[in-house]
């Protein structure tokens, strides 16, 4: 394959990748919520190793994009923030996986 053609293909593929999910921390959040039905804030901190502020920031971005749902409830007297992936988020994450695989497969050896 000619180098210019390869660059064109890879550039086109990269442009189509969801950059919101592509960010490593948000990717980790989405991957966890993709495989779990729901998790609370504390659980995600333990799973991802992020600080509270960092995780909050990323969760807000994902919520604004409609990828996750954030619900606040009380369990006993303790507040809990329950997070789950939305249908749109699940579809976007699946699409991201397919596009990334396609992009990586298109890179010549």
């Amino acid at each position, binding site marked *: 394959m000619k180098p210019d053609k390869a660059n064109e293909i890879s550039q086109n593929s990269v442009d189509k990748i969801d950059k919101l999910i592509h960010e490593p921390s948000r*990717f980790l959040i989405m991957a966890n919520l993709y495989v779990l039905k729901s998790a609370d804030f504390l659980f995600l*901190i333990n799973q991802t190793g992020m600080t509270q502020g960092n995780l909050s920031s990323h969760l807000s971005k994902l919520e604004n994009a409609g990828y996750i749902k954030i619900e*606040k409830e009380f369990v006993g007297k303790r507040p809990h923030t329950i997070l789950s992936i939305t249908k749109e988020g699940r579809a976007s994450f699946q699409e991201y996986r397919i596009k990334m695989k396609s992009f990586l497969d298109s890179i010549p050896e």
Partner: protein
Amino acid sequence: MIQNSDLTQIERNAYRKFFQDGIWDILLGLMVIGAGYAPLISELGIERPWNILIAFIPSFAVLIFGKKYVTIPRLGLVKFGPKRRADRKKLIIVSSVFIFTTIILVILTKAELLPFGWSTTAGDITGPVVISLLLIGLPLSIVAYFIDFNRLYLYAVVISLTWPSTEILYYYYSSPLDEIIVFGIAGGIPLIIGLTFLVKFMIKYPLSTDKTAI
């Protein structure tokens, strides 16, 4: 970018965190120890099955209060996906089959239709070994498979050996001392392992001082 196997690993990693607290090990250890000293409770005038239920109270207390006050405040809350729920349903079905099998075995024993006995004679512990493996070892191993709790395989072997061991020890120590010794050792193994896991868990996941979430 992320393979199905990686996603499976993420899910498994999340699931196995809930066994890192050692509370299930402690529960099992206390139950086995409780089964050993249950005869002592019956000497206080409390007959079966109440003596066994009373002996099991500490183990269930550890489970309920341990999860509520130790695990969840440190680890958080999570609900797993359809695969785990499906495994749980399969476990219920398999457990029901084993309970049914146990009932059949008891009936066959009462009718003296089994080719071996429940007690030893002349040092032959074939009956207790076979029945222990069928009624204790195999069910526990299957539970271990379905709930993905690998330490339970070890405990299945240890607990399966309790009954044959009491049969042997009975010739040296009278009841209930033989049961107390055997069940004490068998229960002590998961108990010590569980306590070790619990201490490590509490160090690894300290309590959050922040009372709010976001």
